[in-house]
């Protein structure tokens, strides 16, 4: 099984040719600065792409592409690999022509240019965004092979923008009666979602233009999107053109037909917006192969829509015994946290799991626990503990245990 063992054998001929024969880059002159005014990854990184899951949707514009979590590090998602979810396709909008409107239960309806929004007091914060349908395909059974397809509707960025409450106060918002805010996009779908006023007054909801130091990417809502920390991605309305303050929720298409949770008995839970505590091991993970026995660093991501991650435990025996993982700093509220833990693989089958706990004390559930309340026919908000089987031949597979 170890036929593919790692390429660092003790040399027989006096040494590794990669050392003894100096490569071109050691004996020549390289390329100049600003050859790429905006640089790109190495050509050897071409395997890292966001990808569609075959057969998941019938069109590409009402669809999703998944981030390659199996090959990512730390907590920042490279903007070029940020997952995508569009309902009516994406656009590259001229920001000088984009307008933002506030209306409804405010003293005065208002209009802003991008220039003006960018003059207001801004905040910069790291937050994860996860589609409510992330890990949906595995609600019932194992359906896809890799963490890209099981958990890849997940990304984390540093967002910069203006707290929505700043803009609402500028318009003279009626905080006594205004309990729900409708956010509306400027694309074809003009995505609409209801946002709780209590989350807005906390200052957490941001009208964002910046992402990872630069502007939002077109696929992620350039030039303006709502950032609703802890809440499923569909509420992070892209190409944001308008917010309306009201006294009742709006039951828009994506909160009255989708993004609802079907419970045993046939009732739907509506307005299930929160992304509860969750984690996943990203390496080793499904579709990978360990080339050798010996030492490995198990690493993964943990997050919670309710605040900071408090701890992550890792099991290599399918959940019988657990060890506490190291959390990388910073551990931020409603952001991804990166965990690492040592592991020596003895070459025998192993089932790797991670289990996160957030600062509210909530512990990520097993599939059994989750299904005992919500059944198996829900689509959204699957935050169950993920299992990866490491086989004797080194191959890692997506499995569920009982």
């Amino acid at each position: 099984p170890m036929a593919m063992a790692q390429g660092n054998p003790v040399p027989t001929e006096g040494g590794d040719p990669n050392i003894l024969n100096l490569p071109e880059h050691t004996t020549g002159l390289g390329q100049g600065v600003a050859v790429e005014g905006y640089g790109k990854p190495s050509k050897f990184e071409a395997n890292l792409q966001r990808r569609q899951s075959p057969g998941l949707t019938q069109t590409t514009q009402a669809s999703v592409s998944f981030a390659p979590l199996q090959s990512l590090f730390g907590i920042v998602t490279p903007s070029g690999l940020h997952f995508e979810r569009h309902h009516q396709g994406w656009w590259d909008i001229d920001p000088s022509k984009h307008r933002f409107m506030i209306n409804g239960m405010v003293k005065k309806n208002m209009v802003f240019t991008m220039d003006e929004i960018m003059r207001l007091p801004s905040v910069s914060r790291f937050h994860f965004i996860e589609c409510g349908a992330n890990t949906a395909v595995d609600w019932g059974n194992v359906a896809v092979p890799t963490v890209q397809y099981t958990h890849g509707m997940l990304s984390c960025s540093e967002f910069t923008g203006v707290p929505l409450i700043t803009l609402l106060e500028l318009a003279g918002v009626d905080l006594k009666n205004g309990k729900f805010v409708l956010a509306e996009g400027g694309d074809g779908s003009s995505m609409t979602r209801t946002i709780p006023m209590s989350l807005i007054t906390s200052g957490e909801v941001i009208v964002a233009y910046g992402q990872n130091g630069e502007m939002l990417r077109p696929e992620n809502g350039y030039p303006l999107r709502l950032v609703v920390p802890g809440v499923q991605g569909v509420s992070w309305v892209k190409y944001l053109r308008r917010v309306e303050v009201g006294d009742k929720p709006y039951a828009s298409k994506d909160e009255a037909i989708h993004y609802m949770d079907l419970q045993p008995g046939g009732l739907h839970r509506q307005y299930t917006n929160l992304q509860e505590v969750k984690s996943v091991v990203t390496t080793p993970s499904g579709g990978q192969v360990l080339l050798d026995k010996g030492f490995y660093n198990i690493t993964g991501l943990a997050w919670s829509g309710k605040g900071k991650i408090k701890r992550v435990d890792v099991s290599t025996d399918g959940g019988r015994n657990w060890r506490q993982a190291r959390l990388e700093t910073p551990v931020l509220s409603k952001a991804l946290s990166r965990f690492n833990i040592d592991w020596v693989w003895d070459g025998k089958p192993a089932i790797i799991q991670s289990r996160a706990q957030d600062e509210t004390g909530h512990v990520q559930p097993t599939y059994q626990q989750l299904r005992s309340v919500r059944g198996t026919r829900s689509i959204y908000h699957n935050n169950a503990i993920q299992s990866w089987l490491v086989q004797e031949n080194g191959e890692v597979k997506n499995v569920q245990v009982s």
Partner: protein
Amino acid sequence: AQGNKYPGVGRDATPKEVAKWDIDVRPDFKGLPAGSGSVAKGQEVWESKCAHCHGVFGESGEVFSPLIGGTTAEDIKTGRVANLNRSDYPGRTTLMKVATVSTLWDYINRAMPWTNPKSLTTEEVYSVTAFMLNLANIVPDNYVLSDKNIAEVQARMPNRNGMTTAHAMWPGNEFAGVKKPDTANKVCMKDCTPEPKLASFLPDFARNAHGNLLEQNRMVGAQHGVDTTKPEPK
């Protein structure tokens, strides 16, 4: 009042501007423009602008999941779609799920037809909505849907009683939800479960269904991608 805090930033919206963009329609029909449209007119709209994607009877799954089907006369009485409780029922149509007729009106008005959103007249939206409701046997063939009678239609929506906000997953305090999360796993560290058994995994024939996984992992790293074009080495 707060205007002085940020001088020079923003201006009042004009009534025309608000009218142009404020198109949302709420479950209590706030925002619904006056107007009407018949099932018959709706059929024309449907067949010329909708049917090639959604099917003549809203049954097509070729572009998106089916819109119509799975609801019964009994559901219209109870306001609960019985098929949602059948785990053997294949798929869930739009009409099985939606509780609020405003949602249909609002969404068709803002986003359909898919390639040409916001192109329908108010009459066309009323009528094509009426036609869809007719396909689902909620309104009769000769119905004319309008802002006056839409509340009556709401009272016949098959899944109108199918929603609950009694859960812990609304991130605010606006609904009388529950506080306690559904699950209460514990931080157990030793001998937490019996020997685990494999309950679900991908069948062998799906090995390469997502493309060659070797090409979906970095070429260096602690683990490489599995070459799924080859059978698994035993």
